Each structure stands twice: as C-alpha cells, then as structure tokens.
C-alpha cells in the first residue's frame, strides 16, 4: 500500500516534468531552428549545437550524479543510492553516445573529418568507455550487492580520472607539435544565446523526467528480485514440511 502511494506521487511529478520538458523542448527547437540566425561561417550545420551542447551537459551531469550516489552507497550501504547511480549511469551512457554521434555529424562538414584526437573528444570517448565498464562489471558481478559496490568504485574512480584524462590529452597535443584543428570563435548573437539557454533547460528537465522514470523501473526490478527470493524460500519450506 505504501509502495503504491509513493509510486503515484512519483508518477505525478514525472508527468509534470515530462510535460514541462516536452514544451520547453518544442520551444527550444523552434528557437534553434527558426528564431536563431544562420551562422555566417558554418551555415545551418551550426544548429546541431543546440542539441549537442545540452546533451553533453546532461552526460556530465549524469556522471556527477553517479559519482555522488556512488559515494553515498559505499558510505550508507542503502540500496536506493545504487538505484539512483545506475539509473543516472544508463542515461549518461545514452547521452554520451548521442554527444559523440552528433559531434561527428557536425565535424564532418566543418572540420572535414569525423574525428580528431582533441582533448574534449578523447575525454568524451573515454568517458563512454568508463560508463561501458560500469555496466559490464555490473553484468558480470553476479550478485546484487557486489554489482552495486563494484560499479560504485568505477563511478568514483572515473569521476576523478576524467579531468586528468582531459589534462593529459591536452598536454599531449600542445607539447607535441601537430596541426590543431580549431574553429574561429565568433561572437554569439543574442538570439543564439537565448536558444541555447532554453535548450539547456529543456534537456535538464528531460534528464530529471528520465531519472524519475528510470528510478521507478529500477526500484520495481529490485522489488521483483526480493519477491522471487521470498517465493523460492517459501516454496522450499513447503517442500520440507510436505
């Protein structure tokens, strides 16, 4: 009964967040595709920026949430922190993938190449692999508590590692002379800033909406495991008494 009350509260908040994010997303798309002026140098290709940057923001936000929840899990050992961490990690993995893909789409016409070993790109790629490792160790750990602990360790190590990866790749490029591809940074007109801000808000709301949905699913999965366990115990008892 208590569980039901809680989930209906969560689904109410989820519904509101979902609606809000859908509305701001629609406004953001209008602002980004119609209202904001065409970029003088990059043309319409620049418009991918309105989804690429917010997705990168969500990916890093998700990773930050994984880090905090992982610390809380190792400290408190409460299952809810692992549920939060793994929900956020899954969203983070999806958004990191999208960031890499949309970045490549943009890089092809503007840079003339799908990929370059620039610090930001390399760090994002490595972040993707760390998230992947996070889910691989969960899948192979076998036991729920172990999966939670091991993945929490990966979440914490990864969080500290990402800035160092960025730094080392950045130095590797600058201390090692190479043709560096760069984009001339033009001043952004006001309309572009407005469009970007609305898109950032839309994607943040979307992240929160996804988190509530995903957290609900993960909680149900854990409940199901508990029920199955209780059921098998009861069956075993039934066999011994009969």
């Amino acid at each position, binding site marked *: 009964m208590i569980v039901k009350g809680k989930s209906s509260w969560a689904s109410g908040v989820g519904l509101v967040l979902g609606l809000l994010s859908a509305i701001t997303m629609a406004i953001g798309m209008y602002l980004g595709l119609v209202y904001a002026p065409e970029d003088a140098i990059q043309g319409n290709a620049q418009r991918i920026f309105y989804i690429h940057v917010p997705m990168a923001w969500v990916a890093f936000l998700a990773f930050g949430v994984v880090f905090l929840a992982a610390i809380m899990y*190792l400290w408190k050992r409460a299952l809810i922190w692992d549920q939060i961490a793994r929900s956020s990690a899954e969203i983070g993995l999806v958004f990191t993938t999208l960031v890499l893909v949309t970045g490549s789409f943009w890089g092809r016409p503007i840079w003339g190449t799908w990929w370059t070993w620039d610090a930001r790109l390399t760090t994002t790629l*490595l972040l993707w*692999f*760390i998230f*992947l*490792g996070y889910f*691989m*160790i969960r899948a*192979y*750990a*076998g036991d729920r508590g*172990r999966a939670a*602990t*091991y993945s*929490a*360790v*990966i979440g*914490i*190590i*990864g969080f*500290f*590692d990402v800035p*160092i*990866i960025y*730094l*080392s*790749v950045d*130095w*590797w490029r600058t*201390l*090692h002379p190479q043709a560096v591809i760069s984009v001339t940074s033009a001043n952004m007109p006001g309309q572009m800033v407005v469009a970007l801000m609305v898109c950032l808000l839309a994607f943040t709301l979307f992240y929160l909406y996804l988190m509530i949905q995903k957290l609900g699913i993960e909680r149900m999965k854990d409940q199901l495991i508990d029920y199955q366990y209780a059921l098998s115990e009861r069956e075993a008892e039934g066999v011994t008494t009969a």
Partner: protein
Amino acid sequence: MRDGLDKISIIVWKDLLTEIRTKELFGGMFIFAVLTIITFNFAFDMTGTAKAASGAGAMWVAFNFAGFLGLGRSISLERDKGSFDGLLLCPVDRGTIFLGKFIGNLLFITLVELISVPIFAALFDLDVFQPLLLLALFLGTLGFAAVGTLLAVMAASTRSREVLLPVLMFPILLPVVIASVRATTLILTRQTNDLSAWLNLLGAYDVLFLAISYAVFDRVVEE
C-alpha cells in the same frame, strides 16, 4: 606504524615465496613482454629518427600487457586456492592487505621491466641507461599497480575476469600511458625541457589513485 609495516612485508614475502616455489607468474610475464616488443618491431618503423617515440610506445604497451597478465594471475591464484579468504580472516586492517598486494604486484612488474629494458635496448639500439628512465618506469608502474590491484580484486570475483580487467583498466589508465610514453620518449632523446611536467602528472596520478584505491578496498572485499 612499525607494526603495520611488518604486516605489509609479511604479505609481500608470502607472495614472493609463492612465486619462488611455483614460478607461475614471472616467467610468463617476462616472455610475454619481450615477445610483444619483438612483434612491434614488425608493426612500427624502429630504425628511423622516430625510433625513440615508437620505441617508448612499444615498450609501455608491452609492459602494460604483461602487467595485465600478472595482475589477473596474481589475484586469481589467491582466489582459486582460497588463500584470499584466509588473508581477509587475518587480524589485520584491510588497507594493510591492499598495500601488501599492491607492493607485491609493483615488485613483480618492476622486476619484469628491469630485465626487459636492457634486452629492449640491445635489440633496438636505444640509449636506455639513464637514471631518469628508472624514475619514469617507477612512477608509471606505481600508478598501474595501484589501480590494477584494486580492479584485479574486483574482476577476479566476476564471471569474465580475463576480459573485464583490461576493459576496465585501459580507459582509466590512459593518463598514465600518455605521460609514461611521453616522458620515456623525452628521456630517450635527451630532451629534458618538458620532462618535469609529465613526471609531475604521473606523480599526482599515483598519489590520487593510490589514496582512492586504499580507501575503497575495504568496501570491495567486504562480503
């Protein structure tokens, strides 16, 4: 403090004694490292002016591969024979166990490196007999062993430990690989201008990740 050091040295001694008696780890790692370096001779140009750069890269890749082999083996030996549970039952702090295993792994990998480097120098005619190279090797291996010991303990209790360890370690170790390769290249070509930046980066990585691994080890082995 003294007591802690004694306990750590007992764990390290146990690992050394096991290795002396079984000889399972060292020979395999060493031959693997040398074979990797030999294979790289055919993959890269090891004769021209870029010899130092590709040589340093080949050397670190060989050491990392041999290191994966050694780490995985050293922990799975413990797990398979049940001696890891015995270690955990000992009346010592879990951090002490971590430091003991870490120093043991560090010793094995360093030993493999020290024996492979002269062979490497002879095969590719590189100027390796420099004290700074020892420092770069030590700092690079320290970071590798710190993260590696922790992740190997985790990977060893999962279903696919051989696959999982490198998949987890490569992305996390990237800064160590970049910094060690760059530092080694600079030492081999005797350009010491930017060297301190890379050695500092290695040192900072080592301190940070040794501290994190030490701090979370207790949680990882708690069953």
